[in-house]
């Protein structure tokens, strides 16, 4: 066998191997939520390998000031699993840098999933809805994930060599853990006093929000109807893999359809708030159970 023939045989074997690998990742033109008894919380759960992937192209948020003028993350790869009451989305995107420490001029890796609050043919604006066209958003952030994973809520995490003489809430006259001490601690932290905990210790890395257009983002009502979302993100050398699980969008049943949109913030690119990469609406199909599909 001469070298030329050897080369072509090797090339053919290599091509087969590559195409074989690719065939395991079935891509779809819409997000297909596959039925399963459980929605895995871990982004690395093997169950995610069994469901098709939708590569959603990300666009610049360039409609509302302040805009993102330079594109960063090109696409977010989305897979979805539903158990009939919840739907989990696994979002993966390439990101070499991990940005999970807040600070002046430091921004955080984050992602979000958005669905319309109502199932109707006239969908809201994909950029956070509009007046009377509310959207529900579940937002995940890397520093919240770090907090959930056990990072202490301390200035030393940002500035290891910081030395502070003292804080008023550390005064000797205040008994540790007492109501008076808590009052003193929140006296200098008005956002915390108001329950607006943007940073600090957290029980969940996600937050449920609603919006009626750009600039109107606010916490989702906590009474009946709260999405009660969960999430978990892990960072590899390649990028982020984040699972966001929320209750099924209102009125959505197996076999039904709605729209979903995604956004990704690359902290290393100073992306925050309206400076983000986002998708338009992507059709979301709640794939019926195998038996139901035949009907």
């Amino acid at each position, binding site marked *: 066998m001469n070298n030329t023939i050897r080369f072509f045989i090797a090339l053919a074997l290599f091509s087969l191997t590559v195409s074989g690998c690719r065939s395991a990742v079935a891509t779809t033109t819409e997000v297909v939520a596959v039925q399963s008894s459980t929605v895995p919380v871990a982004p690395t759960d093997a169950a995610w390998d069994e469901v098709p992937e939708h590569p959603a192209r990300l666009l610049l948020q360039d409609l509302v000031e302040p805009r993102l003028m330079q594109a960063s993350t090109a696409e977010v790869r989305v897979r979805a699993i539903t158990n009939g009451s919840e739907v989990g989305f696994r979002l993966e995107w390439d990101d070499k840098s991990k940005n999970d420490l807040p600070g002046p001029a430091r921004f955080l890796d984050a992602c979000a999933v958005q669905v319309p609050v109502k199932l109707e043919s006239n969908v809201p604006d994909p950029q956070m809805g509009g007046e009377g066209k509310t959207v529900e958003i579940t937002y995940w952030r890397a520093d919240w994930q770090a907090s959930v994973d056990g990072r202490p809520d301390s200035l030393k995490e940002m500035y290891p060599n910081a030395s502070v003489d003292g804080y008023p809430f550390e005064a000797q006259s205040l008994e540790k853990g007492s109501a008076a001490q808590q009052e003193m*601690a929140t006296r*200098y932290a*008005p956002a915390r006093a108001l329950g607006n905990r943007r940073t600090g210790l957290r029980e969940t890395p996600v937050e449920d929000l609603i919006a009626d257009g750009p*600039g109107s983002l606010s916490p989702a009502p906590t009474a009946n109807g709260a999405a009660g979302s969960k999430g978990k993100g892990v960072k590899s050398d390649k990028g982020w893999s984040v699972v966001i699980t929320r209750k099924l969008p209102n009125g959505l049943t197996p076999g039904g359809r709605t729209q979903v949109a995604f956004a990704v913030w690359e902290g290393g690119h100073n992306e925050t708030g309206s400076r983000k990469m986002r998708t338009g609406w992507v059709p979301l199909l709640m794939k019926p159970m195998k038996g139901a599909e035949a009907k």
Partner: protein
Amino acid sequence: MARVHNWQLGREMSYWYPESRPNKQFAAVFDTNKCIACQTCTLACKTTWTSGLGQEYMLWNNVETKPYGFYPLAWDLKLLEMLDGQKWSEQEYEGQKLHTYEGQTIFESAPAGERVLGWRPEDIDYAYPNVGEDDCAGQVDGGASFSLQHMAQHMAWFYYLARICNHCTYPACLASCPRGSIYKRPEDGIVLVDQGRCRGYQECVKGCPYKKVFYNAMTGTSEKCIACFPKIEQGIQPQCFENCIGKIRLAGFINTPDKAQADNPIDYLVHIRKVALPLFPQLGLEPNVYYIPPIHVPHSFTKQMFGPGVDDAVKTYRNAPNDPDLQGLLALFGSSEQMMTRWRRQGEFVSGMRDDGSEVVRVPIKEPVHVRQPYDRLYQITRTNCP
């Protein structure tokens, strides 16, 4: 963008929101010539408002030495470099000089995709609050301090610039916030960040040219000078005013020039005598802290910092010893912790009053001089000047 009137520019300008002036506008006059940079104001503010976690680096009030002092680093130079052609034109009208800004404001020169022209300091930029302190411009050669010629020309100079939030009429922080978390109170024009609404995007930090909004990494929200509004609501001047040992500050309320009242101390100094000037008016925010400019600093520097009225302001201030009204009003600075929204001079005394005309304080324009005799007859002892 809307079209609004900015009297400090002498023209209309573009702003993110339509003109909506508050019922009253908090304002202040700082006399730079009296500041000794003791930083008592800085500490008064620090201990009152920013002693918490995440606020370690924050100075809502700071005093920096010009030309080489900055907090944060090069806050003004960086923006001035970005802002082209800060030209003013001058016209005479009924014996008054009228100045019009011919350049672009930070709103008008906002790049595509931005609400204002700005830049965002990094944490390292806040690491040198005392940079340039007491450093003078120019080289001081050996023996220069004995040279009359050098002294007359002020070859070497510096001055102290005390700074708080300017509670601007057209705040860039407010315009920058994409979710309306910053508001201007209609009752007194004080600009506040709604700590329940802020999501810590830091757009306001980038937008404010004076860099008086700070991101708190431990709360995840941005915070700023609140003009001690709980004190203002009780008719008391803010902490940095009350504690100023150099008595350089006077807090009050300002009217627009067409409604200026001679018995309003701020109106008198800003609109009528034009001795107190805004800080970087060309940026277009209509800032409401007014400075009596330093009298010994080269015109080219102070004109860029305080606008084209600087020469006349210095001239008026230098003449204060022959100007009983101006001298009298300046004596009122630091004479009471209470707000004095009206004033009057009667002979050798000047009174500060409340809105209803009731007197807060009456002070002599010239302090009486007491000469201590070197020999104390009562105790039959020679006094010494030893401390």
